């Protein structure tokens, strides 16, 4: 690469870039070269690229203003294809070989953007203009909106799934230190010295914070100090340092979130092991926030032109990246901190002029400018900026005493860069997110954390610049004090810390004696003339917009924010919020704190969705639960249905069979011969204790005390509203021992329900409930030949006399211990064989093998549904919906009138619940026996030409019954009990009306003889 010409703005020496590792990259298709250690922003700037983006609304040309995550302008579309990423800030992208970036929100090109026509008509599209137009004619809104949507939106989404992997993990520490600048390093060192587990997190790829930018030339001592300090921390096993990690959210009980960019600094896909990003969820006993401060721009006319930068950013580019952003630099400031930039730039060979809005400036600064040959204009302001795609010159004029107007001799200064500083805004975001309140400090013209308002659930300390403490020396001592205090508060003995000796606290004076000038005047009143005073660059919000909002009555901060969209862009107003507040305060004649602050909402910087999802994607998105027999089902072509978390076989197609054909075959097999169903997913609860029967009396609507040992009984559970919420068969295994079954989806809910009552309402009862769902694998064999089949595998006497319907028996099946329940959900002779789960697959295989002699047919849930519907057995959740009582489903027989009480009983007699004519479960037989009603179809009381039509019920279950050779349906029909035999009309959505006769819900074997046989 040595033959390549050095980038025009790259300084010949200095910076923490690795000049031995040149990296090539492209921007808008053009190739450039930078170095390892560059950011995309610094590399572009080095190459003289000034124009980097277009603004959101007016499509104004924009360049970099910052060097960190507060950057509002230089948003890029990074990479292409499935790894493309919109809206990335060039200042936060570490350069890697082959990087490809594209500018956004412009067409056809960045330098010639048709959308910039908005800028020409900007006069007619002030803040909130869309609320006042696009209303005529009403039908056109969707059309207008299409164009509005197209124009908005910045970058583009990928259109293919993300090929990268992410991790989401937890961390715990006694002291979390946010920010590894001088304050953070000192805090971490102090806390670690006390023995606390310390987590130190920093956004940058190296520790140092503000030190990385602040050194004026002599960088070695500073870097050495940082290296020493970090090494000392790293040697402590209780200290973890996370770099390239941003703390994004501060939630209650010191729960903080952070995003670590693990491999983003490498070419995409080049690390086969590590995740791309890692999302941290941190519990800290104590937090030290040392998040630094953000420089804010001055709000002056056309302050958005490419080349207008923050003064400290210019300093950072010079020192850290060896990039001199301009040869002719105008430094424009209202405070001392920008003088550092002026001297540094001049030292690096730039022509520098300092324009200071203050009339009085510290003499030593004036002297140092003089010594460096820098022109100085105190009491002046920039009144206009020339140049569109890049800054060409500025005009400056003297400011009036009150700073409200300009008057007198104007000067035009040609320049290619304006380094401006409106002062420093402490990064109070996390403190505010923690729930602490902010206090306005006049001396620094900014909000700082009010330590008195730290919430007890979120104990934390703020130290350094984020606390309004700007000089390095003070940051170090404040950090150490905070770190020590945090360790003590976390229960450790305080310990004094030895920081490495080479103290880097040079002569950083911070912002000195700042004189805020929130809005820099021009010769025109604000809002008149072509110039715009931007405070929110990305969302294109100007001082004039604030004036307009005030004029129209949108005075509260939140109205201002929402009406003008200030602070709502992807930078969340990091550089703009305070300026906006101050301008509004000025308009209202109020103090800034009276206007208030907006709420700082998480995240501090935007967080990749994939990182939050972490590893819990794809097969780990939500658990898939499988029975011990699952693999057999897969091997035998089962089509699965999701039931709760479980995968259950829905049907087993043979050859080219569709569901309909398979179900017809399976259902017939069960009624004619014998079928087998994997019933392992049913919830099972072991209930023991001398009060168990008493307890069940309260839980179920029917009686349980008299159930004999060995007996099984069906029960319905109601919630306290009196509505059915689960059902199942419970068996008495001993005097004080029951085995309850629940629906598959209801297992956890029911156990919780039982425990709730036992633990909170009836603790005196001696009852213990234990889930045993997965302890038992269950094969249910159903059909007239079930007994014959089972008898080949067991010595248990299966005769009806020895083992009648609705009883249970224990013994060996296929040589393993088993419990058999003779209960039936199909109405056929049925045995539900329970074996310990380890033998589930074996039992199933053995039954299948033995079943060959009986033409045993495996069947799935769909056939189970048909078979039970033929018998009129309800499915809770399908034939009921949380508004249905036992009486509504024609099951009054199961509601005991002998018991004083059971859960939900009192609700059954409420005015509306006890009334006649409620929707009640009935059977429906269509006139055309071949027509299967769609589930969900509604019964109307009157057929009209078109809706609306009054409805009186709906179909809950509907199937073609192979055993009846016709369709059957269940429906909830108003006053259904009294409509048996009536013909009702079902109105389908396509307009068809189907006549059906109301029938009993039991379609097969009304007397129930088959199951008893």
């Amino acid at each position, binding site marked *: 690469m040595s033959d390549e010409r050095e980038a025009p703005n790259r300084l010949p020496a200095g910076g923490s870039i690795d000049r031995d590792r040149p990296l090539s990259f492209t921007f808008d298709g053009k190739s450039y070269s930078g170095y390892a250690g560059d950011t995309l922003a610094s590399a572009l700037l080095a190459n003289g690229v000034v124009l980097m983006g277009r603004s959101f609304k007016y499509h104004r040309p924009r360049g970099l203003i910052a060097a960190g995550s507060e950057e509002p302008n230089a948003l890029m579309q990074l990479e292409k294809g499935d790894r493309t990423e919109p809206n990335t800030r060039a200042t936060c992208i570490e350069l890697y070989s082959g990087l490809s970036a594209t500018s956004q929100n412009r067409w056809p090109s960045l330098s010639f953007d048709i959308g910039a026509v908005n800028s020409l008509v900007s006069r007619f599209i002030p803040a909130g203009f869309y609320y006042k137009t696009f209303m005529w004619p009403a039908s056109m809104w969707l059309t207008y909106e299409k164009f509005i949507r197209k124009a908005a939106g910045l970058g583009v989404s990928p259109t293919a799934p993300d090929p990268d992997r992410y991790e989401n993990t937890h961390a715990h520490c006694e002291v979390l230190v946010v920010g590894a600048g001088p304050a953070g390093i000192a805090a971490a060192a102090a806390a670690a010295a006390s023995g606390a587990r310390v987590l130190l997190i920093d956004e940058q790829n190296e520790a140092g914070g503000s030190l990385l930018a602040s050194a004026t030339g002599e960088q070695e001592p500073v870097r050495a100090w940082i290296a020493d300090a970090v090494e000392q921390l790293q040697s402590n096993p209780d200290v973890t340092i996370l770099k390239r990690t941003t703390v994004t959210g501060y*939630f209650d009980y010191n729960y903080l979130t952070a995003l670590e960019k693990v491999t983003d600094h490498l070419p995409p896909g080049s690390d086969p092991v590590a995740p791309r990003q890692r999302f941290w969820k941190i519990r800290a006993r104590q937090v030290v926030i040392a998040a630094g401060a953000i420089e804010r721009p001055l709000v002056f006319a056309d302050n958005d032109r490419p080349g207008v930068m923050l003064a400290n950013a210019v300093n950072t580019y010079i020192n850290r990246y060896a990039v001199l952003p301009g040869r002719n630099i105008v430094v424009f400031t209202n405070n001392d901190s920008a003088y550092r930039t002026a001297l540094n730039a001049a030292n690096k060979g730039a022509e520098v002029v300092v324009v200071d809005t203050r009339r009085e400036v510290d003499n030593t600064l004036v002297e140092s400018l003089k010594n460096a040959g820098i022109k100085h204009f105190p009491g002046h302001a920039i009144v206009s900026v020339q140049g569109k795609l890049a800054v060409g010159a500025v005009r400056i004029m003297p400011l009036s005493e009150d700073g409200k107007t300009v008057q007198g001799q104007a000067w035009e200064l040609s320049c290619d860069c304006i380094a401006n500083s409106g002062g420093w805004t402490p990064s109070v975001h996390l403190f505010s997110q923690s729930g602490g309140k902010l206090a306005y400090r006049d001396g620094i013209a900014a909000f700082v954390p009010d330590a008195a308002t730290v*919430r007890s659930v979120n104990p934390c300390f703020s130290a350094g610049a984020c606390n309004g403490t700007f000089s390095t020396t003070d940051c170090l001592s404040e950090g150490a004090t905070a770190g020590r205090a945090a360790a003590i508060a976390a229960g450790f003995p305080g310990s004094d810390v030895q920081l490495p000796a080479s103290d880097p606290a040079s002569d950083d004076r911070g912002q000195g004696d700042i004189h805020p000038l929130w809005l820099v005047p021009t010769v025109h009143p604000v809002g008149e003339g072509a110039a715009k005073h931007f405070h929110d660059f990305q969302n294109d919000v100007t001082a004039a917009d604030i004036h307009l909002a005030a004029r129209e009555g949108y005075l509260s901060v939140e109205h201002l924010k929402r009406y003008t969209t200030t602070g709502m862009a992807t930078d969340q107003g990091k550089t703009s919020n305070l300026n906006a507040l101050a301008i509004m305060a000025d308009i209202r004649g109020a103090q800034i704190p009276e206007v208030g602050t907006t709420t700082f909402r998480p995240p501090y910087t935007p967080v990749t969705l994939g990182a939050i999802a972490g590893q819990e994607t794809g097969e780990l998105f939500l658990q898939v639960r499988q029975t011990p027999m699952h693999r057999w089902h897969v091997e035998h072509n089962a089509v699965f249905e999701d039931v709760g978390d479980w995968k259950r076989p829905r049907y087993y197609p043979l050859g080219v069979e569709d569901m309909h054909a398979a179900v017809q075959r399976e259902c017939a097999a069960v009624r004619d011969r014998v079928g087998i169903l994997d019933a392992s997913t049913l919830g099972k609860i072991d209930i023991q204790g001398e009060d168990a029967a008493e307890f069940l009396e309260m839980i179920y609507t029917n009686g349980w005390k008299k159930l004999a040992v060995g007996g099984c009984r069906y029960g319905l559970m109601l919630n306290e509203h009196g509505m059915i919420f689960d059902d199942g068969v419970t068996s008495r295994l001993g005097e004080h021992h029951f085995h309850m079954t629940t629906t598959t989806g209801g297992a956890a809910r029911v156990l919780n329900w039982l*425990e709730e009552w036992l633990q909170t309402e009836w603790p005196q009862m001696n009852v213990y409930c234990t889930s045993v769902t997965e302890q038992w694998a269950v094969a249910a064999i159903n059909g007239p030949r079930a007994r014959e089949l089972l008898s080949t595998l067991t010595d248990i006497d299966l005769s009806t006399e020895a083992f009648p319907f609705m009883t249970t028996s224990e013994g060996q099946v296929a040589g393993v211990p088993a419990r058999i329940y003779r209960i039936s959900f199909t109405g056929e002779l049925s045995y539900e064989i329970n074996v310990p789960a380890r033998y589930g697959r074996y039992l199933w295989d053995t039954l299948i093998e033995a079943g060959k002699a009986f033409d045993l047919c495996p069947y799935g849930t769909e056939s189970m549904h048909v078979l039970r519907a033929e018998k009129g057995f309800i499915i809770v959740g399908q034939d009921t919906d949380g508004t249905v009582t036992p009486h509504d489903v024609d099951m009054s027989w199961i509601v005991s009138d002998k018991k004083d*009480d059971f859960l939900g009983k009192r*609700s059954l007699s409420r005015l509306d619940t006890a009334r006649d004519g409620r929707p009640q479960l009935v059977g429906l037989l269509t006139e055309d026996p071949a027509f299967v009603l769609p589930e969900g179809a509604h019964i109307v009381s009157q057929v009209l030409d078109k809706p609306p039509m009054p409805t009186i019920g709906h179909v809950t279950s509907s199937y073609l019954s192979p055993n009846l050779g016709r369709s059957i349906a269940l429906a909830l029909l108003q006053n259904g009990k009294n409509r048996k035999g009536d013909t009702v009309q079902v109105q389908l959505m396509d307009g068809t009306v189907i006549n059906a006769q109301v029938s009993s819900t039991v379609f097969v074997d009304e007397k129930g003889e088959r199951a008893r046989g």
Partner: protein
Amino acid sequence: MILINCPYCGERDQTEFACHGEAHIARPTDTASLTDEQWGDYVFFRTNPKGIHYERWVHVHGCRRWFNAVRHTVQDEILATYEVGAPRPDVGGQQ
């Protein structure tokens, strides 16, 4: 993201727990004698205070015990946890 001091297992992450609403609502006995209004009041009506709330939690992913907590519904701070059946603890006159 609250940290909850389970009276049995100690301090744990909120995601191990489930909240089940207002505590100290005894189920009426002799339910047959209640009016619809009295029964409705028990089933549906809650104090929903802005301030101190006595509420039920269950340690779903832990010991599966139910217990009560006193929480400030504005601060979301849990001021005390205590076993079911214990009286409401004194939380120092907080409103």
